[in-house]
C-alpha cells in the first residue's frame, strides 16, 4: 500500500473575479522511501495541492481524498492535522527567509517544533537542535543555534529549514521548490544533503518544482501537471525519453540541454491558461500542436500508455504515441491529420484572425 494516496483532489478558491479552480481532479501515490517529482509551470496547481493536504489553504473549497497511512487527511480537524504536520509530514518551502520567523533565533524555532510534538525539556530540545544543525552541515552549530535567520546565508537558512523539518523524523517530506532561490553550487549541496537524509531515515519525498533538471536528478517518479490536472506520470527515464503527452514533449523541446532538444529551441506557443475560465476539453488544446476535434470537446482520462510500467497520460493520442524524436512526432501528426474537423478549424481561424487584425491596425 502506498504511504500517501491522493484521489480526485479538487481545490478551488472563490474570488471576486470568479472561482479559481486551482486543482481539478488530481490523483497520485507516493510510495514509502521514494521520491515523487511534481513538475509544472506557475499556476499549474502543484503547490496548492500539497498545501491542501496539510490544511494550509484556508478559504479553499477542497474535495476528494488523501489517505496517509490509513488516515484520511482531508477529514481531519485542524488540531488533529497539527499532530500530523511536522511530525508525520514535514514541509520545506521555497523562500527560507520568509518561512523562518525573523524575530526568533534559529535554535528557538527548531526547539519549538520539537517541543510542540514531544514532551522534551528545553535543554534537551536545544541539545537536539545543535545536533540537527550539525547534521545539516552548518559549521559551528553551538553558536548558530543562537543566530537570527537574517544572520545566515540563503543556503544556511535552507539548511536550518531542513533541520527543522527533519527534527521529528517525518515519514514524508514535501519540498516545495526547495532550491529555486539558491545558486547552482548551493543547490547541489542541498540536494546531496536531502538525498543522504532520505536514505538514512527511509523517508519519502515529494519534490515540487518547475525545474526539469532537478527532477531528472532526484525523482524516482515524475508527475507533470497542467492547469490543475495530472498530464502525465511515469518513472523518471520514461518521462524524459518516451513522453506521451504533447505538453511534456513540448517542455522538453523548449529547454536548452534537455534530453529531447537539439539546435533551435521549440517553444510551446501561447500562454498558460486562466484557471477561472479553463479551456474546454483538454486544457492544453489551445497550445497543442496535435490538437484534434475530440480534444476541444472532451476531457481525456488519465490512463495507462505504452511507455512502461506505471506510465499514465491524459491525452487523446493513441497509447503508443510516445517518444521525443522526429519519427515519434511524425507518427503523432499522421494520427492527428484525419481527426481534425470544424472545431480545430474554428480554433485556427480565431488565432490567425487575432494576428491579421493586429497587422491591419498598424498598416
Amino acid at each position, binding site marked *: 500500500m502506498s504511504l500517501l494516496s491522493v484521489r480526485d483532489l479538487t481545490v478551488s478558491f472563490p474570488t471576486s473575479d470568479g472561482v479559481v479552480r486551482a486543482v481539478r481532479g488530481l490523483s497520485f501515490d507516493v510510495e514509502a522511501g521514494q521520491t515523487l517529482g511534481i513538475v509544472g*509551470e*506557475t499556476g499549474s496547481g502543484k503547490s496548492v495541492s500539497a498545501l491542501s493536504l496539510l490544511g494550509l489553504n484556508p478559504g479553499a473549497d477542497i474535495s476528494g481524498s488523501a489517505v496517509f497511512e490509513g488516515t484520511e487527511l482531508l477529514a481531519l480537524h485542524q488540531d488533529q492535522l497539527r*499532530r500530523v504536520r511536522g*511530525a508525520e509530514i514535514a514541509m520545506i518551502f521555497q523562500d527560507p527567509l520568509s518561512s523562518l520567523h525573523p524575530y526568533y533565533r534559529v535554535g528557538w524555532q527548531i526547539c519549538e517544533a520539537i517541543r510542540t510534538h*514531544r*514532551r*522534551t525539556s528545553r535543554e534537551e530540545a536545544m541539545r*537536539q537542535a545543535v*545536533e*540537527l544543525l550539525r*547534521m545539516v*552541515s552548518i*559549521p559551528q552549530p553551538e553558536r548558530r543555534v543562537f543566530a537570527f535567520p537574517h544572520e545566515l*546565508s540563503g*543556503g*544556511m537558512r535552507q539548511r536550518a529549514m531542513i533541520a527543522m523539518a*527533519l527534527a521529528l*523524523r517525518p515519514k514524508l517530506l514535501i519540498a516545495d521548490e526547495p532550491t529555486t532561490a539558491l*545558486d*547552482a*553550487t*548551493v*543547490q*547541489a*549541496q542541498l*540536494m*546531496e*544533503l536531502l538525498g*543522504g537524509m532520505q536514505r*538514512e*531515515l527511509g523517508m519519502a519525498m515529494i519534490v515540487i518544482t518547475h*525545474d*526539469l*533538471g532537478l*527532477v*531528472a*536528478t532526484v525523482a524516482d517518479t515524475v508527475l507533470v501537471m497542467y492547469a490543475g490536472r495530472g498530464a502525465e506520470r511515469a518513472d*523518471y*527515464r520514461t518521462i*524524459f*525519453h518516451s513522453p506521451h503527452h504533447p505538453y511534456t514533449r513540448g517542455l*522538453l523541446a*523548449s*529547454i*536548452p*540541454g*534537455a*534530453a529531447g532538444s537539439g539546435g*533551435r*529551441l521549440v*517553444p*510551446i*506557443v501561447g*500562454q*498558460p491558461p486562466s484557471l477561472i475560465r479553463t479551456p474546454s476539453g483538454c486544457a492544453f488544446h489551445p497550445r497543442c500542436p496535435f490538437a484534434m476535434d475530440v480534444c476541444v470537446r472532451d476531457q481525456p482520462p488519465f490512463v495507462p500508455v505504452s511507455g512502461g510500467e506505471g506510465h499514465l497520460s491524459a491525452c487523446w493520442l493513441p497509447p503508443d504515441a510516445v517518444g521525443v524524436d522526429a519519427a515519434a512526432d511524425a507518427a503523432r501528426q499522421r494520427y492527428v491529420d484525419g481527426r481534425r474537423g470544424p472545431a480545430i478549424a474554428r480554433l485556427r481561424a480565431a488565432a490567425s484572425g*487575432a494576428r491579421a487584425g*493586429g*497587422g491591419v*491596425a*498598424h498598416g
Partner: protein
Amino acid sequence: MADTTAPVSPAGDEPPLTAAPVEDRPLLQVENVVKHFPIKRGIFFKRQIGSVQAVEGVSLEVCRGETLGLVGETGCGKSTLARCITRLHPLTSGRVIFDGVDISRLSARQLRTHRRRMQMIFQDPFGSLNPRRRVGSIIGDPLAIHGVADGGERKRQVQELMEVVGLNPEHYNRFPSEFSGGQRQRIGVARALALRPSLIVCDEPVSALDVSVQAQIINLLEDLQGEFNLTYVFIAHDLAVVEHVSDRVAVMYLGKIVEMGGTAELFGSPRHPYTAALLSASMVADPDKARSSHRVVLYGDVPSPINPPSGCRFHTRCPKAQPICSVEEPPLRVQAGDAAGHVTACHFPVVPGEQLVGTAPAISAAATAFAAASPEIGEEDRA
C-alpha cells in the same frame, strides 16, 4: 549616493582610441574595471569603514554580432559589471570603450549620444515596467527622450516594434498589468530595440519566466540578433541557457573573471576548478547525464566581497588549493593546450578528464547517528 569614483574629467569629443578599421575593432572593450561600493558609518561625519569590492579589475572584449555570456553565482558582480558597462554605475577605476570611444569618464550629456546605442533588458518584467503607464508610452519613451520621433510617427514606430517582438500592436493602449510575464518581457525587449542599438546588455532576461515561455523569448532574442545585427552581453545563472545562446562565456567569482573562452571549449573542458564545480553542479534535464555525472560539490558559502580572501579568491573552497593559492593571485592567461581565446586564472588548472574531489565534512556520519538514535522519550504523546 556619493561614490568613491574620481571626479569625472571633461573628456570632450575624443577621437577614436584605436586606428584599426571600424569593422575589426571590438564593439565593447572593458579594461580593468573596478567598482567598489563604500560602507559608511556615523550620522554627521560619515566615515567610510570599508567597501564592497563588487567588481575587481575585469577586462574583456565583445566583438560585433557576438553574444558574450556572463555567469556566476549571486554576489559575484555580474550585474554590477553590466551596470558599469552601460554606465548606470560610475566606475571606481578602469575604462569602458564602446565602439572606440572611452565612455567611462563622459559627462551625462556627452553620454547621452552613446546611450542610444547601448540598451539593457532587465530580469524582472514586473518591476522594470511602470505599472501606471501605457505600453505604448513605455516603449515610446526612448524615442521621446532622444527626440527621434513624435506624435503619429512615434506611434507608428512603436507599433512596428510591438509587431517585431510578437506583441499585438492593437494593445498599444493597455497597461503592463494586462500582460503575462512573457509578454511583459517582450515589452522590455521592444523598449530596448526602439533606438536601434548596437549593444544590448541582457541581465537575466529569462530567469523569471516559465520554461515554456522562456524558450519563446530566447528564440526572439536570437532572431533579433540576426535581423538587427545586435551584440549581446547575456547574464544568466542558468548555465544551460547561457550555453545555448553564447558564442563566448566568461565565468565570474567574487568580482573577478576566473575563466573565459569559447562556449564549446569552456563547457567541454573547463580549466578553472570553480567552472568545473559550477558546471557539474548544474542539473541538466537529462536523467542519464544528471545521474551518471560526477558531481563536484563545493562546501561552504561564497566569502564576503567586503573582505575577500587573499591570493586566489577561490582558494578557501577550492578542492585543488595549495599553499601558493592563498598568497599569490594567479593571472588570467592561456593555459597549456588551450586555444588562444581561452584564458584561466589558476595556478593548478583542471586537466581534461580529471575528477575533482570535494573535501566533504562528514555529513553522512552525523546523519547516520541521527537516524540510528532511538526516538526520544515522549513518543507516547502522539495521538
